[in-house]
């Protein structure tokens, strides 16, 4: 099979299966559930297989798959081509996005079992991977923006999936609107780039080769606007508020969209524009600080949350903060590596949370979910592994990725970033094990066991991944060759750190983490202390960020809209137009008085007309003679 065809199938198979499910869903009232399952799984399964194939060849044979689909527009010598191009970065993204998507599809088939909107769910899910692949595979930012918007749209649709509860719809709206702010930044950056780069084509390569022509201020502006887009998608301060609310969607959605794939699009975008950010150093540093503050903020907030999914949501935000820190100091492949491992363990954590939620009949408060270890030891093992991974305990995968970030931050010369990252990382350990100990190390409570095999198997596979995914980018110190960085070949900035320092760093780090785990165990395991924590503290109320945003942005905007609606639109414009219409009507009535149907009067009008015509003629003739 040719490369072109492979890439096209990779992109289109989820779209085709989504369309088929849609057609079946609207045309038949009663459909067997397994038809949906078969279609959805084959759609994502085919693309996952091809994605593995593509990244295999990209990794080992350095092969770049290209497929030119069509020319989108062509104005003079400016053309926008829709071209799929699996360069190393795209292939790398495919390597984890496609398989994780497939596994979560399998999981969702179990989780959504017997749901009345089963078909609709998989339409969205398959469409989501289509847009995600579009975002990752295309070779110019304009088409990427289509994918970017598409995943945002699907995210909106899936957050409000259970739209019977208006709160879910509000959460969806919030996600969509906050993302719009980010998209505005992205779109403005695109336009500016369009103006600056202009006619030389608009693929990434063309843009990067023209970067030197753009003056510095403009570059800074473009880079910061692009990052605003990433901020929205990847839930960084100040545009993070949608992510915790996004947990209103079904748990597979949180696992796939709001943990493993979509939220990492911002990281991908910054890494994609690495040549730009390497020039705009100030913006990069700004990104690093935003990442650091987000990581720390989210970790602090997560340590006083009680909703199991909200804890994980803040944890996602915090991990994304780590990635942005690494991006900001210029260690792009390190950030991508952390994204890679994060996709596995965070998807696993969410799936575990989903299994627990199903088992407890959709309760999400960890104070009510106790003693699960006795009923479902397998789940315990997997969740515990995932927590050890996120805590960066060697030799789990995140140890390598997070430690790489730590050493990069340490050697980057921004020591305050390093300490913020360290604090966030220790807090991560604290809130994760707080959750684990409350959930599993506590007295038994009766629970059902409804996790189907479809839910357990993907989790088991992800457990293996989250343990072993680290081997992809083993640092030199453990005998690795940083294979992934070599593969990606991004313009990383170089950092030097001596091996002894690195070992020292790892050792201290690991010791601190173990200390925190022991502290957390003492505090939360087999105690009821969590029930005595105050829910009114400023941390538990998320530093009142939502309230502040409400007061500072939402309410003024709302009152402005109300003012415009009532005063301007209703009173001013409506009244003006209505009164004009009224006047015309009155005028019409006045004229209709003349048209009374009485032929005598028509004769009079003819007479008047003739007289006036003659007078006019007479005047003209007199003037002429």
């Amino acid at each position, binding site marked *: 099979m040719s490369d072109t065809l492979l890439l096209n199938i990779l992109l289109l198979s989820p779209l085709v299966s989504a369309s088929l499910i849609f057609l079946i869903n609207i045309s038949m009232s009663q459909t067997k559930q397994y038809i949906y399952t078969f279609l959805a799984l084959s759609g994502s399964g085919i693309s996952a297989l091809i994605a593995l194939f593509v990244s295999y060849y990209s990794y080992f044979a350095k092969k770049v798959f290209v497929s030119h689909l069509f020319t989108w527009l062509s104005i003079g010598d400016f053309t926008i081509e829709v071209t799929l191009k699996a360069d190393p970065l795209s292939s790398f993204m495919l390597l984890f996005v496609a398989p994780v998507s497939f596994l979560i599809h399998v999981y969702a088939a179990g989780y959504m079992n017997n749901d009345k909107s089963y078909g609709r769910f998989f339409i969205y899910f398959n469409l989501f991977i289509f847009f995600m692949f579009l975002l990752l595979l295309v070779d110019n930012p304009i088409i990427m923006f289509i994918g970017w918007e598409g995943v945002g749209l699907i995210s909106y649709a899936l957050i409000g999936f259970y739209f019977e509860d208006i709160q879910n719809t509000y959460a969806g709206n919030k996600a969509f609107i906050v993302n719009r702010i980010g998209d505005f930044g992205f779109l403005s950056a695109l336009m500016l780039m369009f103006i600056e780069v202009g006619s030389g084509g608009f693929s990434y390569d063309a843009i990067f080769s023209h970067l030197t022509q753009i003056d510095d201020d403009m570059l800074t502006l473009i880079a910061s606007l692009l990052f605003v887009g990433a901020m929205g998608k990847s839930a960084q301060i100040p545009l993070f508020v949608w992510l915790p609310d996004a947990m209103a969607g079904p748990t597979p959605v949180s696992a796939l969209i709001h943990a493993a794939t979509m939220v990492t699009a911002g990281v991908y975008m910054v890494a994609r524009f690495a040549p730009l950010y390497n020039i705009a150093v100030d913006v990069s540093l700004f990104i690093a600080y935003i990442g650091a503050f987000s990581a720390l903020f989210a970790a602090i907030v997560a340590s006083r949350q009680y909703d199991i999914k909200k804890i994980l949501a803040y944890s996602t935000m915090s991990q994304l903060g780590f990635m942005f820190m690494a991006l900001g100091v210029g260690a792009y492949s390190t950030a991508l590596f952390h994204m890679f491992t994060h996709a596995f363990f965070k998807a696993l954590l969410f799936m575990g949370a989903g299994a627990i939620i199903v088992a407890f009949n959709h309760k999400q408060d960890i104070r009510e979910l106790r003693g699960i270890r006795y009923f479902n030891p397998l789940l315990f093992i997997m969740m515990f592994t995932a927590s050890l991974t996120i805590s960066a305990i060697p030799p789990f995968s995140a140890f390598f990725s997070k430690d790489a970030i730590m050493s990069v931050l340490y050697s980057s010369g921004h020591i305050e970033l390093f300490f913020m990252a360290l604090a966030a990382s220790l807090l991560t350990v604290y809130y994760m094990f707080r959750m684990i100990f409350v959930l599993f190390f506590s007295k038994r409570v009766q629970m059902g066991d409804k996790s189907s095999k479809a839910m357990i198997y993907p989790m088991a596979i992800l457990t293996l991944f989250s343990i072993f995914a680290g081997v992809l980018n083993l640092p030199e110190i453990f005998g690795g060759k940083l294979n992934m960085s070599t593969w990606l070949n991004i313009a990383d900035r170089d950092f030097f750190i001596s091996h002894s320092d690195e070992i020292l760093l790892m050792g201290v780090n690991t010791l601190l983490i173990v200390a925190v785990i022991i502290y957390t165990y003492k505090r939360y395991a087999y105690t009821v202390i969590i029930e005595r924590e105050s829910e009114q503290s400023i941390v538990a109320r998320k530093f009142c960020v939502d309230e502040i945003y409400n007061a500072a942005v939402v309410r003024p905007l709302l009152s402005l809209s109300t003012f415009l609606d009532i005063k301007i639109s209703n009173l001013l414009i409506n009244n003006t137009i209505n009164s004009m219409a009224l006047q015309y009507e009155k005028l019409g009535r006045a004229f209709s008085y003349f*048209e009374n*149907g009485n*032929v*005598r009067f028509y*004769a009079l009008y003819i007479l008047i007309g003739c007289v006036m015509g003659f007078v006019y003629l007479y005047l003209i003739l007199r003037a002429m003679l």
Partner: protein
Amino acid sequence: MLKSYMILSIILFSIGMVGLISRRNIIVIYMSIELLLNAVNLSLVAISADLADSSAQVMSLIIIAIAASEAALFMALFVVLFRNKSSLDANLFDILGSKHE
């Protein structure tokens, strides 16, 4: 000489016009129309005599003939109108107008 014929024609035309516009009886309106017609005939004949060209007189003869046949048509019309409304008041026949929409 032509001038006085023309003045007479204008006077007749004006009387006809005023009658057409101001009277309500349909028969009187018809008579006014005939007056208009004959005012025009008079001017045609006068001009024709003045120019010593008889074609206009032929035209006015044709007009008189047509007006005669028209009279027959009008008589039939009056009967039909009277049967409809039991009256020949022109103001009653206004269904062309906007108030009957």
